[in-house]
């Protein structure tokens, strides 16, 4: 009996059901070449903002952004996130100092090029860096490594002196790959912020905070949670919304029995 009803369900034409119910919805095709709608414009105008005005963002706008994160899709609807919002400048300075300290230590340990070529220190650091690079190829990509060097040398900041920092905490027991869900949740938050006239920046270097038992205790980060990412929020300096150019990416397009490569 149960089996029969499953089969019936599978065979049912959803459009027929719609029709029989008298609830047929209409198809609206956006015409070719139509101007970008509001959502598309929000996506195109979003940039990572690393210089902020001093003015604090009103609390209700942060709540409004987080509310959009709440409705993000997640594998099996597992919603493996919770949030920490930091709005006190001295506390933000505290997490900044900790992450800068970590970058200094890391930089001393792996930036072989800061030691005189041919010295023992150069030799040993380079060997260590190469091994570390092989073991952690994502983390030790040349771009974040140059970021770590720049932070260690005081040429780059971690939290960009933002008036508000949101930490995205991930429940490590999330279904499948919970880090993807965190990314999607954060994307909702960031795009909502853009639509509200706010600037944001994702902060991958915030993950260093997981290494500090003191900061984890103070921030309320405990197993099975970890800090997956952070997002800084504030009002942007200038008007960084001119539409930029970026590279295109390969698209394998299968249609009509053929494969085409598009960009």
């Amino acid at each position, binding site marked *: 009996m149960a089996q029969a009803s499953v089969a019936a369900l599978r065979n049912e034409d959803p459009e027929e059901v719609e029709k029989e119910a008298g609830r047929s919805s209409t198809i609206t095709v956006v015409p070719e070449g139509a101007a970008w709608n509001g959502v598309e414009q929000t996506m195109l105008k979003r940039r990572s903002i690393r210089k902020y005005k001093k003015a604090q963002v009103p609390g209700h706008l942060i709540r409004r952004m987080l509310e959009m994160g709440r409705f993000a899709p997640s594998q099996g609807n597992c919603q493996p996130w919770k949030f920490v919002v930091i709005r006190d400048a001295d506390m933000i300075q505290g997490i900044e100092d900790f992450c800068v300290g970590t970058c200094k230590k890391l930089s001393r340990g792996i930036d072989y090029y800061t030691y005189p070529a041919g010295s023992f220190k150069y030799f040993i650091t380079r060997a260590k860096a190469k091994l570390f690079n092989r073991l952690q190829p994502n983390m030790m990509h040349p771009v974040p490594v*140059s970021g770590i060097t720049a932070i260690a040398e005081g040429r780059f900041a971690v939290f960009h002196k933002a008036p508000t920092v949101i930490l995205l905490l991930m429940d490590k027991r999330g279904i499948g790959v919970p880090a993807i869900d965190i990314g999607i949740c954060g994307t909702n938050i960031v795009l909502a912020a853009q639509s509200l006239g706010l600037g944001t920046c994702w902060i991958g270097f915030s993950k260093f905070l997981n290494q500090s038992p003191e900061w984890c205790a103070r921030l309320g980060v405990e197993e099975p949670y970890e800090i997956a990412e952070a997002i800084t929020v504030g009002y942007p300096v200038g008007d960084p919304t001119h539409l930029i150019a970026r590279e295109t990416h390969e698209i394998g397009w299968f249609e009509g029995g053929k494969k085409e490569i598009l960009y």
Partner: protein
Amino acid sequence: MALLSKQERRHFPDWDDPGQCQFHSVTIDLEKCDGCKLCTIICPANVLELFGDKAKKKARVKANARGCISCNNCFAICESGAIEASQHYDFVGYYRQLGRGEFSKPRVF
């Protein structure tokens, strides 16, 4: 057939070797630049600076500066359309870029 050869997969480029880690640079139109300084303060790689006399300062890429990530945040903030990145960074070996086309503004389909 793999897109990266066995040798490439094993080769991690020297972080400090411009031949192995190719960061590109922005082009700046000095005619258009009004020296507003905004690009120099927002550039995440900190590779831009102003130069020249007080009244007619212009932006330029710092000497020996490396690490531009072609994010075009400088273009996004420039009111004069004077500065732009048009090539992405690329590396030899493990991190060689794959499946990328030309730089292009958002296209309307």
